[in-house]
């Protein structure tokens, strides 16, 4: 058993940014271990994508192709990748931590008596894999002790896509054996939840609100702050789940990814799922009563205090500064 294999997924015929980040993580891990790194892509026809990966520093890219992989199903992808792993026997498998990976990779790992080390944010000598615990309040260091392949998925933004090393790898093929009856679930085509009328992605200023606002009636104070600042109003997931703001204003892994000049987080603790949607912002301000809230890990400026006192004071200060 040898080598690091990075398994990439295609999205609309391309490797997404998180895919390149996973490749960067795989190259980093392989360098640390002195092992070769390869890649694999699954689908019905992944020729173009495999070619784009083959222009990076990888020993080879395997096209795992079958007509039944045209649409993602956990059964189809598990069967195909399991067969490939049994043939290729990589020592490490690195994945982007996407919803799709979360849906099928834990099952494959179990087939090998292994456990996916999921949502990894850093890899140190050992290798020691670091992941977040308690919604980002703590970090845990994990070691792989199993005798089978080590399965790892990396969190969006933990590694940099622009550090992927260029090179030239050969392209190989792998044809898994899959029969239609083995696929037990029937997916329908994806659809958008609601008509997207707010484009938070291009907003320069965003005021974002979380659980700390306590009640829908209290939203008026953050609405006024957003108005004063000329900002779009956004929210963390619980606010949209409660129906206090429309889903299209949700920032995070299940909502929009934003990178404004200023992101002002009000009463948001900063769960991982929220942070991945906003940590690329140029300047982040956090207002929270809990000084240990994970949002302060990514903030440039913080005010620890009661938002019902701080927000009105901030509105006044901004008006005064404008005047």
């Amino acid at each position: 058993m040898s080598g690091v294999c990075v398994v990439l997924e295609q999205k609309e015929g391309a490797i997404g940014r998180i895919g390149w980040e996973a490749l960067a993580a795989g190259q980093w891990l392989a360098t640390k271990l002195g092992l070769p790194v390869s890649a694999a892509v699954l689908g019905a026809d992944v020729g173009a994508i495999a070619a784009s990966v083959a222009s990076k520093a990888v020993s080879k890219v395997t096209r795992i192709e079958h007509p039944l992989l045209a649409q993602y199903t956990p059964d189809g992808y598990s069967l195909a990748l399991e067969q490939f792993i049994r043939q290729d026997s990589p020592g490490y498998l690195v994945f982007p931590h996407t919803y799709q990976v979360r849906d099928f990779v834990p099952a494959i790992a179990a087939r090998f008596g292994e456990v996916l080390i999921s949502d990894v944010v850093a890899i140190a000598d050992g290798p020691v894999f670091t992941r977040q615990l308690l919604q980002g309040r703590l970090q845990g260091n994990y070691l792989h002790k199993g005798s089978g392949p080590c399965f790892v998925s990396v969190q969006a933004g933990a590694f940099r896509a622009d550090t992927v090393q260029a090179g030239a790898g050969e392209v190989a093929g792998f044809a898994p054996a899959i029969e239609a009856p083995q696929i037990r679930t029937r997916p329908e085509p994806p659809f958008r939840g609601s008509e997207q009328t707010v484009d938070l992605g291009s907003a320069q200023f965003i005021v974002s609100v979380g659980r700390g606002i306590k009640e829908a009636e209290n939203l008026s104070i953050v609405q006024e702050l957003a108005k004063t600042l000329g900002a779009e109003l956004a929210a963390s997931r619980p606010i949209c789940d409660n129906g206090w703001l429309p889903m299209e204003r949700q920032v995070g892994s299940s909502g929009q990814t934003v990178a404004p000049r200023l992101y002002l987080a009000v009463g948001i603790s900063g769960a991982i799922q929220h942070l991945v949607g906003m940590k690329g912002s140029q300047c982040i301000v956090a207002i929270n009563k809990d000084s240990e809230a994970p949002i302060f890990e990514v903030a440039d400026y913080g005010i620890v205090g009661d938002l019902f006192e701080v927000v009105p004071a901030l509105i006044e200060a901004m008006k005064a500064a404008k005047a």
Partner: protein
Amino acid sequence: MKIIVAIKQVPERDAQVRIDAAGKWIDEADIQFAMNESDAFALEEGLRLKEQHGGEVIVITAGPERAGQTIREALAKGADRGIHIESNDLGSFDALGVARLLAAAIQPEGPDLVLTGLQSDDLGLGQTGVILAELLGLPHASLILHVEATESGFKVKRELEEGWFQNIELPRPALLTIQSGGNKLRYATLMGIKKAKTKEVRKATAAELGGDAAPVVVLEGIALPQKQRSTQILPGSAKDAAAALVEKLKFEARVL
């Protein structure tokens, strides 16, 4: 329809957590515990399906004695009975080890549907449900917001990334991991709380279920997170801090 809901007791969301002396886990002495959030939504989905189609809702948990409170809470909300895999050293099991315990306890029940939360708020591994489906040989779907029982199975709404969704059909029996927010959670009624005291909770141990730890993935130690940015905390009264912030945003960060 026989529905099994796997739930977990986790530290309360706002609990002030401290690292224990060994540096391996948190000091649980002064911590309040609660039902894991997405598990509460899984339970809600199970109770709604039972109300529509009849049958039985069984909750199962693996955890120390205190986790019994979370089973009682589920029973008070309307679950019919509970299974408690009692263990004080679950920390030495990895996700596969815990899923094996759950699978061994679930298998003899022969459920039509197994529901779990999407992920726990403490370890956040997000995979117990998917592994459980593999061990039980059930088709599965994850990140589910809505479940509809059909003639021969289920039609579910799955959340994808960036505001996209997808409907999926699965045969019965199946396993689903439930995302938070799909329903409004119910509260336990006084009558429910009273009834819960008389409902059956069967206890099992890891040894009885044939489980031994031998983890393949080990949590070696925990630590406070490293800061990704250097944060300036602006001190003083709300008014002073707000004024200082506006100054910083204008003249230091230059974003205003």
